């Protein structure tokens, strides 16, 4: 079992870099989803699963602010050295639409690695099943987490939800890694017809006894539902949050969510105390 993280505890973080990074490749996954592969060995070598970057999207100061994006995978050369990293992006507005227009060779200004990471089991912790639950582009941080968990010898299973089969993300990543995958789609075009929480609950009922750890990232209603499942099953859950961000550095206080604080609550920063939180610390409203 994970030791319960202190609310607001900041892990001893690697230094933050502000780099001009060359875009190596842009791969379109669907009309709305794509993967950006960036240079940036420093960020790649020092980041941990769950961390994010703030990136410009192109366009001469318009939009003004950088966009937060989870680190999706670390890119390595033949010798296994980290040489860059990828982002998995869904177009939801102007900035992400501009990112989609970038060309290999374009330069993005990238700040990172930022925020807290998923807390990995302490070395020597008894083996547990690690269940990654993701909806939509919430999939982005999980391949890196799966890789880390597998490297430490843990068993990993991914629960992936999407609106429709074409929008299912990261299937290739999990195939590469040899991670078992459970799928649901809202329209039944692939896997179970329904919500990702339903396949999760179903799995939890059927599985053998034994320790398990949950991780979730996706739309708020989905994360709320996973929290309820985790509480019913009395399993620890780490959730990765999103919020509008101006700085990503903890300075502007724009990205807050409510966390338990003593008998009450306080606003804590998703970019600094998060984006990964212990679900029991979150005030789910």
């Amino acid at each position, binding site marked *: 079992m994970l030791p319960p993280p202190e609310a607001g505890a900041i892990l001893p973080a690697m230094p933050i870099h502000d780099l001009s990074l060359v875009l190596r490749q842009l791969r379109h996954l669907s009309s709305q989803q794509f993967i950006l592969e960036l240079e940036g060995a420093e960020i790649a070598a020092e980041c941990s699963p769950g961390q994010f970057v703030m990136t410009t999207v192109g366009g001469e*100061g318009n939009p*003004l602010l*950088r966009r937060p994006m989870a680190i999706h995978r670390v890119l390595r050369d033949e010798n296994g050295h980290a040489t860059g990293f990828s982002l998995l992006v869904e177009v939801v507005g102007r900035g992400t639409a501009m990112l989609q227009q970038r060309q290999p060779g374009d330069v993005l200004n990238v700040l990172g690695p930022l925020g807290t990471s998923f807390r990995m089991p302490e070395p020597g912790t008894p083996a547990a099943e690690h269940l990654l639950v993701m909806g939509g582009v919430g999939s982005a941080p999980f391949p890196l987490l799966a890789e880390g968990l597998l490297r430490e010898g843990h068993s990993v299973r991914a629960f992936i939800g999407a609106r429709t089969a074409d929008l299912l993300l990261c299937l290739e990543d999990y195939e590469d890694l040899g991670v078992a995958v459970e799928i649901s789609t809202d329209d039944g075009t692939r896997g179970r017809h329904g919500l990702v929480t339903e396949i999760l609950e179903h799995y939890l009922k059927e599985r053998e006894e034994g320790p398990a750890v949950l991780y979730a990232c996706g739309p708020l209603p989905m994360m709320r539902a996973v929290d309820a499942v985790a509480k019913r099953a009395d399993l620890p859950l780490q959730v990765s949050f999103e*919020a*509008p961000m*101006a*700085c990503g*550095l903890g*300075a502007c206080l724009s990205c807050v969510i409510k966390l338990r604080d003593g008998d009450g609550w306080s*606003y804590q920063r998703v970019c600094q105390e998060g984006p990964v939180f212990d679900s029991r610390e979150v005030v789910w409203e």
Partner: protein
Amino acid sequence: MSSMSKSSVSLAVDIGSVRLQNPILVASGTFGYGAEFADLVDLGRLGGIVVKGLSLHVEVGNNPPRIAETTSGMLNSIGLQNVGVEVFLEEKLPPLQQQGVAVVANIWGRSIEEYVGVAERLDGAEGLAALELNISCPNIKQGGINFGKDPELTEKVTSAVKAASSLPLWVKLSPNVTEISELALAAEAGGADALSVINTLRGMTVDVGSRRPTLASTFGGLSGPAIFPVALYMVHEVRRVTSLPILGIGGIDSLDRVLQFLIVGANAVQVGTANFYDPTLSARLIDELAEWCGDAGLTDVTELIGTLRET
């Protein structure tokens, strides 16, 4: 090209009795308590750090969403969330003191008593260069009138804080007024040692899909490159009526705009919103300013201040 090496240019400026090593500061609310930028910026090189607005007690702040992007700008309604003056003194100030950078405590309150309370608590704190009074706050004791919109209230809160603290007092003016020069004079009458010009412009946006204000608190403060021409105009207006030192603030995104503020009569500037999207800008501006002065044949940046040629 350059006849002067940049190291031979003096960038120091005096804001009243406070000597700053250079005129590039960072603005309140846009640089946290400094530590947030320590990986990226050598804090000890900055002209000064104005910390996030402090109140007597911890302040929880407004509901999110608290920001909205606008064309070349942003709206914020953080609601002045902060750790409170005690935690500031215990946890946030000491690491900054070690950096040897001029720290300016931006303070606010909901009544004159609250302003005075914070000021008293900060009086004598080591490593504080000045207080900056954020008067863009509603006075709950007087029907919610904004201190910064009313010359009488501006003078009152200024003189009350001045009496409560031995620190130099900078008063930060709101641009949401008919004549900013009147407010400048009121602050001067209250004993201000310098004027910070400007705070954010009031604005709002709407999310058409939900037909709701984008910000949970409906309104917010507009900042960023979009507001620069308004800020520069207001510095010019204030300079017309007072010889107090001025800190020019609003929309700085490049050396050119720093120079414009200085030429119009600001004695130093504060970089705000740009810290969010270009976090190393403030440090780069110091180098660029030194180089520009050298190239222009200036040995001292103060030779530039207030040199606007008007006809």
